[in-house]
């Protein structure tokens, strides 16, 4: 007798973490102290700002930072030293650079910030003195949105075509499955590059975004289509579907009431699997310079500066976008595992 399963604490934590992640990215403007495009030519490659609670006068409840000053203008790496002459407390809900929340509401409130001329670079700054933390948040918007959108496209196309193949059967099925086999016979990255190759290289950010999601979704429909087709094929021949046909059920009715619900479990699992993969696809393309281009941040093009060994070695904090990507992927991966085990047990 199926009973209501208690939702374990770990699952709750997972869902909360995922929701929090997406919320932070959605409201990037609020959580980011700075505009991602603003450069500070005096502070290129600044290391992460250290947050202090204790100074000469003892413990403070409100954390504070010191400003960075260049110590040695070396030919290799800039070295910075904290200027301890003045401390800058971190204020919350400060007013800072104005922006549009979710692109709609103009405001200038930020979660935290420090007074000028100090900068709070939580993850340091890049070669142009832009705040890495802010760029990660805004870059995440693009990368994660691309992953989500591409997943939607791939699953939509895959489901529709899988249903057509599985339901119509015979030559429709065979030809569609032949096409999917074609798509699956190429290693995905080669395929991605190939398709990307024939499309315009330099477009506006918005167009690039749509292009990327379209391309990734375009080659990603094949596997979901095969899986959905398998389910539809077996469901179509079930006796209860036959019985409903015996009552005069139309094809649309049969699909809606009996066949489609069988695919939901699979689609959910596939979604949780594909989102991180497609985020990684966008990141890879942007890393290669085939995706979102400067100055718009994306986790991919932020990581591409690391292709220079000098940068890689000296400025380790620039690996932060990789960390953000890993966190996102691991969370989604855990979700996918969860869905999959629930699907298997039902």
């Amino acid at each position, binding site marked *: 007798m199926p009973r209501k399963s208690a939702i374990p604490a770990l699952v709750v934590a997972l869902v909360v973490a995922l929701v929090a992640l997406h919320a932070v990215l959605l409201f990037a403007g609020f959580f980011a102290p700075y505009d991602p495009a603003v450069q500070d030519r005096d502070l290129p490659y600044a290391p992460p700002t250290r947050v202090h609670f204790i100074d000469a006068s003892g413990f403070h409840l409100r954390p504070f930072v010191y400003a960075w000053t260049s110590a040695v203008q070396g030919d290799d790496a800039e070295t910075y030293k904290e200027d301890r002459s003045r401390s800058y407390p971190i204020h919350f809900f400060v007013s800072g650079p104005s922006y549009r929340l979710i692109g709609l509401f103009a405001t200038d409130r930020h979660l935290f910030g420090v007074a000028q001329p100090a900068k709070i670079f939580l993850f340091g700054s890049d070669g142009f003195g832009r705040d890495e933390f802010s760029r990660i948040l805004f870059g995440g918007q693009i990368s994660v949105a691309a992953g989500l959108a591409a997943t939607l496209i791939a699953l939509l196309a895959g489901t529709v075509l899988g249903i057509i193949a599985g339901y119509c059967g015979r030559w429709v099925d065979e030809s569609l499955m*032949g096409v999917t*086999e*074609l798509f*699956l*016979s*190429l*290693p*995905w*990255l*080669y*395929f991605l*590059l*190939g*398709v*990307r*190759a*024939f*499309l*315009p*290289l*330099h477009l506006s950010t918005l167009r690039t975004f749509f292009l990327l999601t379209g391309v990734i979704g375009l080659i*990603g429909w094949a*596997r979901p289509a*095969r*899986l959905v087709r*398998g389910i539809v094929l077996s469901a179509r021949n079930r006796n209860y579907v036959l019985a409903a046909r015996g009552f005069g059920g139309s094809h649309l009715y049969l699909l809606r009431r009996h066949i489609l619900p069988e695919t939901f479990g*699979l689609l959910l*699992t*596939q979604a949780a*699997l594909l989102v*991180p*993969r497609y*985020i*990684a696809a966008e*990141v*890879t393309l942007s*890393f*290669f*310079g*085939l995706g979102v281009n400067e100055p718009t941040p994306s986790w991919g093009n932020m*990581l591409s500066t*690391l*292709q220079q*060994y000098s940068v*890689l*070695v000296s400025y*380790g904090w620039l*690996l932060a976008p*990789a960390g953000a*990507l*890993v966190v996102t*992927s*691991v969370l*989604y*991966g*855990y979700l996918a*595992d969860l869905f*999959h085990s629930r699907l298997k047990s039902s």
Partner: protein
Amino acid sequence: MSFIVRRLARSALLLFGVSILCFLFTEMAPGSFFDEMRLNPQISPETIANLRTHYGLDQPLVVRYERWLKSALRGDLGISIAYNSPVTPLLWSRAKNTLLLTTTALLLTWIISVPLGVWAASRRGGLLDRLITLASAFLISVPELVLAVALLAVAVRWGILRTGGMISADFESLSMWAKLQDVISHLVLPVCILVLAETAVIVRHVRASVLETLQSPYVQAARGFGISRTRLLFRHVLPVAANPAISLLGFSLAGLLSGSLMVEVVCGWPGLGPLILEATLSRDLYLVIGGIMLSALFMVMGNLVADMLLSALDPRIRGNEDKAEAEQGLHAA
């Protein structure tokens, strides 16, 4: 015998289909292939027009495809503008390096994963098993690009491995043995990245498959006879558990080829990857198409070998393609 012939015919058809797909994609561009060049003031419109005729881009799609197909079947895949030389030898020299990388990674992956998976399954719930499960779950989630960059960072930072390229500057002057050592030392980093990524996937599957076999009735019966653990594992469990694992070979290859592209670019290994990337960025049409076709060829051949291996091991597999595929829904792009 007819099975092999059928598979060969299918593979040929597949490659044919891929080539058509490639050419269809060239029609996809909302503008023409050389639109970007038009924006560049240094390139004159005459040059662009010449390029177009040179590539036959002013011809209709069918004519272009026919010309390409005819020459491709003779082994000539066109000319590269960037290198100003035929595509085929360019691809081939790079392909050898990619094959070296990929095959090494494939072999090592399976040599490591199978025993590891079997061991983890046989000591289910133990500390090592849990460690392996956790580690593989984590590694699977990490995108391959991140893995590559992270390992590169570690290698560069601590200077423990040779990074960049395939050979050192003084390669030519080395002895035969030293040459081999040199290549191997450069091979270590990219192979490590690939193996790490792929092992996580394979170990999981091997472990699951062995666990499932261990539950099966005939294994329980065998245990009832008092067979030793090792004998049980190797003579009874492994042959059966091997099947679903080996059916992964094809997907494993797909993942490795894609992964190798990334790894080659990041580590500077002179394989197909960086070549195709470069060709894409410089709009080198026939080089891109040639590269894609070659990768498809590798995939198809690899799958063929895997299928033949599989059918040699177990003739039942030939009928069970759909079932194996459902289980693979979790893996591969």
